[in-house]
C-alpha cells in the first residue's frame, strides 16, 4: 500500500506492507523492518532493530491524531496515495472563508462581534471558557464576519465551527 505519511510535521512517501507480524516500510530508497504485535487492544509493541517501542495511536476530540511512542507524543497523519484528493486543502490564511473553531469543549461566555462586522487580523471574536480558564478565539486574518453560529451561554464541543470569516 502506497501512503503519504506526515510524522511530526515531516512528509514522507512510503510503501507499507504487513505479513504475520512483520511490517515493512520503504521510503527514501530504504526498507525498514519492524516486528509489530498488539498485546492489548490499541497498544502496539514495535520491535525495530531489537529496540522495543510501546506505541498507541491517540485520536483527540479536536480531530488531530498523535502517535505516542514510549510516552513521547508525535503528531501524525496518513493519506492513501490513490485518493489524495481527500486530503484537506492547504489554503490557510489568505483567501476564501475561514471557520473559527472551538479550541476545546467549553461554554461560550462572550460573542464579541456581530454578523456583518469587519474583523482585523488576530482580533478576538468569541470567548470560550472551560476549567476556569477563558480563551479568546481570534480571526487569523482580516475580513468580514459572515456568520456567527453560537450564542452566549451555549456549550460547544471541541472542533465545532462557531463563526465564519470571509
Amino acid at each position, binding site marked *: 500500500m502506497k501512503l503519504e505519511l506526515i510524522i511530526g510535521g515531516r512528509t514522507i512517501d512510503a510503501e507499507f506492507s504487513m505479513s*504475520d507480524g512483520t511490517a515493512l516500510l520503504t521510503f527514501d530508497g530504504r526498507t525498514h523492518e519492524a516486528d509489530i504485535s498488539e498485546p492489548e487492544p490499541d*497498544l502496539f509493541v514495535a520491535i525495530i532493530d531489537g529496540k522495543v517501542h510501546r506505541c*498507541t495511536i491517540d485520536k483527540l476530540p479536536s480531530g488531530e491524531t498523535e*502517535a505516542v511512542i514510549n510516552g513521547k507524543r508525535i503528531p501524525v497523519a496518513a493519506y492513501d496515495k490513490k485518493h489524495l484528493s481527500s486530503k484537506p486543502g492547504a489554503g490557510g490564511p489568505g483567501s476564501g472563508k475561514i471557520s473559527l473553531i472551538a479550541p476545546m469543549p467549553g461554554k461560550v461566555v462572550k460573542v464579541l462581534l456581530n454578523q456583518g462586522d469587519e474583523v482585523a487580523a488576530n482580533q478576538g471574536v468569541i470567548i470560550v471558557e472551560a*476549567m476556569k480558564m477563558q*480563551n479568546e478565539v481570534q480571526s487569523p486574518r482580516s475580513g468580514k464576519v459572515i456568520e456567527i453560529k453560537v450564542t452566549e451561554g451555549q456549550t460547544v464541543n471541541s472542533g465545532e465551527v462557531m463563526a465564519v470569516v470571509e
Partner: protein
Amino acid sequence: MFKKILIANRGEIAVRLIRACHDLGIAAVAVYSDADRKALHVRLADEACHIGESPAAQSYLVGEKIIDAAMKSGAEGIHPGYGFLSEREWFARAVEDSGLNFIGPSSASIELMGDKTNARIAAEKAGAPIVPGTTKALTDEADAKAVAEKIGYPVMMKAAAGGGGKGMRIIRSSDEIGAAFSMAGAEALSAFGDASVYLEKYIERPRHIEIQIAADKFGNVVHLGERECSIQRRHQKVIEECPASFNDAGLRARMGEAAVRITRAANYHSVGTVEFLVDADRNFYFLEMNTRLQVEHPVTEIVTGVDLVREQIRIAAGEKLSFTQEDIHWKGSAIECRIYAEDPANNFLPSPGKITKLRTPSGPGVRDDSGVYEGWEVPIFYDPMISKLVAWGSTRHDAVAKMKRALSEYHVGGIRTTIPFFREVLEDEEFVSGGIDTGYIGRFMERRKAADPPPAEMPQEMPADIDNAGLAAAFVTALSFSRQNGSASSSTESRADQQSSKWKMAGRLTALNSR
C-alpha cells in the same frame, strides 16, 4: 472515632479522603453534581448524595445543600478537602452550628489566618519574620524615600488596593523612587481607582517553601518539615518536593519552630501549612497560612511516613496527635507532578474530554493519586487536575529518576495532559541541579521556545536520520491506517468501526489562534 463522614469535594482529593476513611473503618458519603454522577469518587464511596447542577456555584459551593446531605445521611463530620468551601469561614461556622464536626480548624482560626493583614500581625506577634515593609499608604516621594531607606534596597512598590502585578515596581536605588512613585500611583489609580501605594522589601529569586504542621485540640503542635513549591505556573504550583533541594537541617528547624509558634498564635488545630519565601541567603519570611489540607501533602507523607489525612480525621474526632516532634524523621526524597488536563504544546489550553485509554505507572517508589478512570469524561466545569503522581527515592537524584520512569509509563489517551511537559522539565539541567526559585518556569519556557521553533519553520522533508521514535510512529501510523482502509494486511483484520474520515490533518489549525 467517627462512624461516618461526608466528603464535600470531588476528583482526586475526594478519592484520597474516601480511602483514608476506609483505612480507618469509617463509612464515606460522597456528594456529586450532574456532571459527576459517574465520577470515581462516587463509585468508591459507601453512600452518595446528588447536590445540584454541574457548575460548582450550584453544587459544590452551596454550603446548605452539603450540610443538608450530611444531616440526612447521618454523617458526624464533613471533610472539605481543599478548594471549594475548605477555607470559607462561614461554611466552617455553619457546620459547627449544625452540630456537625468540621474536619479542619475552627472557624475562628480560618477567619484570623484568612485575612492577610491579620495573619501578618499574628505572625509578627509570634516572633516570625515577615517581609520587611509597611502596608501603610505612602504620602509623598519623600515619605517613600524614607521608608525605602529604612527597609533597604531593592524594594517593591505595590498598589494598596490591588494585585495581579498592576502598579508594581521594583526599585533598586533612591534615583528610581520619584519616577516609580508617580507611575505606580497612576497605574494603580487607573486599575483600582485608588492611587495608594506602599513598599516592601523585594526578595530576589525567592524560593517558595512551606512548613507542614499538625496540631491537636490539646495544645500539641508538631511540624513535619518543609516542602519546596517554587515550581509554579500562573501562580499555581505544578511540581513539589520534600525535602527542599537545598536540604538544610538547621534552616528546617528554624522555619519549623516559627511555623509552630504561628500555629499556636492562631489557636489552631488540624493539619495546616505555613508558607514562607526564602531568599538566596536563606533568610525566610512569613507569607501566609493555608488552613486546610494541601494538594501536595503526599510528598510529606511519603518522606515522614505520617498519613496526614488520617491524622487530620483523628484530630477532629478529639484524639491526641499520634506522634511528638521527636518521632518525626525525614527519609529520602519525594517529588510530585500535578497531572493537568491541559495541552502543554498549546499554551496549556484546557483539554477536557473523554479518557479513551489510561495506563498508570506502578513499581517501587511510585504513588498515583488519581481521580479518573478509562472511559471517564473529564468535565469542563472544574479544576483541570486529574491526578498527582508522586515518586520517592533515597536521594533527590533517585526520586527524579523514578519520576522520569513513572512518567514514561503513564499514558492518558483522548485528552492532552501535562505529562510530556514534566518529562521535559525533569530533563532540564537547572531543575536537576536543584538551584530553583519561583522564576524557574518562566526561564524554562524561554529556553523551550528557543529550542523548539514553531511548526512553520520546521523542515518539511523527513531528514535522512529519522530517529527511532519517528520510525516507530511511521510504522504504527501506516499499520493503523491500512487496517482502517482494508488493505496491505493479511494477518490483521480491518476495522469497520473506525472511519478514515477521522484522519485529519495533524498540526495546528490556523483558525485556532488563542491566547
